[in-house]
């Protein structure tokens, strides 16, 4: 169990030594531009995605400011359309997605499976450049005549055609999405190839950490879904500029086809966004409960079934179009609650009778559980057509998916607090982290829960002004207060980064982690490992550090030993 041998040789470039490479390579900005190291690329992804989160959040704060009072005139109607379109687009396309499968996945997945790098390092770098240029393309819409895209983040036809939405902003939106779409596809290819071909000896598929499993399913979903979006965008562009009539009735086209194509990408996209964060939360909960993941195989099969079902649920976004097969999509959507419920059960099972250590990462994970439960349960209501007919396009839907994505933001923050020390070598301040958590958690509930009530009281989404109505006004103001609290939590995060800058050295394994990334140094060396432990379970690092304990078999959770308290670092 304890013999440690050198990792496989990596042919970096002919017969150069790895150590020398870091000294001979380009420096400064050229080093950043030419890097193919998955950790540097992942870090670039992380920084870019967090910047996008701040931009998207700023747009959200303006939207909430506008909706604070009835008949407000802070922004014009046209500006409001741009604001909610770009808020949704930036958050979904440029923040949550790339953060999920580009940022932490890029850094952590190769290390978790004992690989020296991603399978295609240059393709990986290309993914980042396409993501960056795509983001710039989409955001530059704000600087052209006519303003940014303003047809909603879903770009429904025929609103998105050249007559109803002329101007360069919409085209920049399409172009930016093409670039980031290809970026995602290349990342999907890379993740699949890495996970299938670069695992360390003994790292069988059913010993992979749950995070890696989730990223594998995410990558497969990316490959199934994103090409459909890319095709749809090209059709939309042709409709706008080349005189085709794919989505326009006068030429014999079918507008609802755009919705089919968009949501055939859009609903798997929800799971592309969510699954990586499910994985992060699973790792965090297991490590901070000092227990192996409860129901490892159940977790894997739940992930696979979510991936499988996600391809057959897209038209639950289209119930009110009247041309979709209601029972099919209702049944499929309700079925997804089963594997998600299994996951919820397993997360609670992992914490159950564990030595739960409420670090910031763990608090974020628990916050994720609660918030995701609220969003998930209201999703079950929306999967039922009779209820959906009443709540469609009201704030109820807005509240539902904001509960979901704010849960994902908590997962993202948990991931940063959990893996940040591994990536940078330094811990973040726990006190500021906990302040950030409480602002984020309370702010999220204060800003989403009133939206549910607003939706049930009939407030439509995407309206810039609403008439004077006491209950609507109070709930909107409450929601704005919540949005400000969430903004404060983001500021707390920035303060924490500055305050903790190179202050608290982390060491290689600050949390007594389970998986391979905690075996290497913090930050990991070029090509990640100087040595690898023997892999005999899904938590090789823990086995190595606790040789007295037998490797935990799946479904066997007896190794709950309080005497290892002294190994828990107090931060």
């Amino acid at each position, binding site marked *: 169990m304890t*013999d440690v041998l*050198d*990792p*496989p*040789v*990596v042919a*970096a*470039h*002919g017969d*150069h030594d790895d150590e020398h*490479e870091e000294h*001979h390579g*380009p420096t400064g900005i050229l*080093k950043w*531009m*030419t*890097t*193919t190291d998955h950790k540097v690329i992942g870090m670039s992804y992380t920084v870019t995605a967090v910047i996008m989160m701040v931009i998207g959040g700023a747009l959200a704060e303006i939207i909430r400011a506008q909706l604070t009072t009835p008949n407000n005139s802070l922004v014009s109607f046209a500006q409001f359309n741009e604001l909610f379109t770009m808020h949704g687009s930036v958050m979904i396309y440029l923040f949550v997605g790339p953060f999920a499968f580009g940022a932490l996945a890029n850094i952590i997945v190769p290390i978790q499976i004992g690989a*020296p790098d991603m399978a295609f*390092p*240059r393709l990986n*770098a*290309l993914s980042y*450049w396409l993501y960056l*240029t795509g983001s710039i*393309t989409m955001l530059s819409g704000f600087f052209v005549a006519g303003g940014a895209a303003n047809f909603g983040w879903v770009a429904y036809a025929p609103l998105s055609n050249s007559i109803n939405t002329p101007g*360069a902003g919409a*085209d920049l939106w*399409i*172009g*930016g999405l093409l*670039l980031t779409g290809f970026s995602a596809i290349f990342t999907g290819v890379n993740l699949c190839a890495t996970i299938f071909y670069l*695992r360390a*000896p*003994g790292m*069988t*598929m059913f*010993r992979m950490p749950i995070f890696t499993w989730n990223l*594998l399913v995410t990558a*497969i979903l990316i*490959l*199934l879904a994103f090409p*459909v979006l890319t095709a749809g965008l090209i059709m939309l*562009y042709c409709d706008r500029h080349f005189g085709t009539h794919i989505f326009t009735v006068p030429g014999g086209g079918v507008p609802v*086809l755009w919705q*089919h*194509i968009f949501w*055939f990408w859009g609903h798997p996209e929800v799971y592309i966004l969510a699954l990586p964060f499910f994985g992060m939360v699973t790792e965090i909960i297991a490590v901070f409960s000092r227990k192996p993941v409860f129901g490892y195989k159940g977790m894997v099969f739940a992930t*696979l079934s979510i*991936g*499988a079902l996600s*391809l*057959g649920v897209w*038209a639950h976004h289209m119930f009110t179009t009247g*041309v*979709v*097969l209601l029972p*099919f999509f209702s049944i499929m959507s309700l079925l997804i609650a089963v594997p998600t419920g299994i996951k919820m059960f397993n997360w609670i099972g992992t914490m159950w009778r564990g030595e739960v250590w409420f670090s910031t990462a763990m608090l974020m994970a628990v916050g994720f559980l609660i918030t995701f439960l609220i969003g998930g349960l209201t999703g079950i209501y929306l999967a039922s057509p009779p209820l959906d007919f009443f709540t469609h396009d009201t704030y109820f839907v807005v509240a539902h998916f904001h509960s979901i994505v704010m849960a994902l933001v908590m997962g993202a923050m948990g991931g940063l607090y959990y893996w940040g020390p591994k990536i940078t070598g330094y811990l973040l301040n726990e006190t500021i982290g906990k302040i950030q958590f409480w602002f984020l958690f309370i702010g999220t509930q204060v800003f989403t829960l009133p939206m549910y009530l607003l939706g049930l009281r009939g407030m439509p989404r995407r309206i810039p002004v609403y008439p004077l109505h006491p209950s609507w006004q109070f709930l909107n103001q409450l929601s704005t207060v919540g949005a400000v609290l969430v903004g404060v939590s983001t500021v707390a995060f920035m303060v924490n980064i500055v305050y903790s800058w190179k202050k608290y050295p982390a060491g290689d394994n600050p949390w007594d982690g389970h998986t391979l990334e905690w075996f290497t140094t913090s930050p990991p060396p070029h090509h990640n490992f100087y040595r690898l*432990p*023997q892999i005999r379970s899904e938590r090789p690092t823990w086995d190595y550090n606790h040789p007295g304990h037998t490797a935990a078999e799946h479904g066997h959770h007896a190794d709950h030993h309080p005497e290892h308290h002294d190994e828990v670092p107090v931060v």
Partner: protein
Amino acid sequence: MRTEAKVLLSLGVFFGAMSVVYWNWGHENAGGVMMFAGMLLCFLPGGYYYWWSRRMRARPEDDPNATQAQGAGVVGAFPGTSIWPFTLGMGAFFVVLALVFGIWFLVPGLGLVVWALFGGTAEGRRGGTQ
């Protein structure tokens, strides 16, 4: 290799079954075609992995009792640094700008793309940069 194949093939079978049910029940073409294509997309790599898994010995990463020494040797060529992804990315950026601002953007765009394709291929043949 076998587990990888099973994952993809079982997803493909599920998508195939779903597309048959949906097509016969809903008579809606777009979704049926897309789910059918999803099935093919899973069968293609899944079938490849399955074909190989029956013709090769288990790799060290498929062997639950493998030692690290079994993985010794060259696992692949990883280029140290490369400017070509950046060049290709900027080329793609200009091509997309051509969609919006004018066809002339294709000149630098396609120029960079072609340059990067040649440069990257040559770099790959040399076995990476440095």
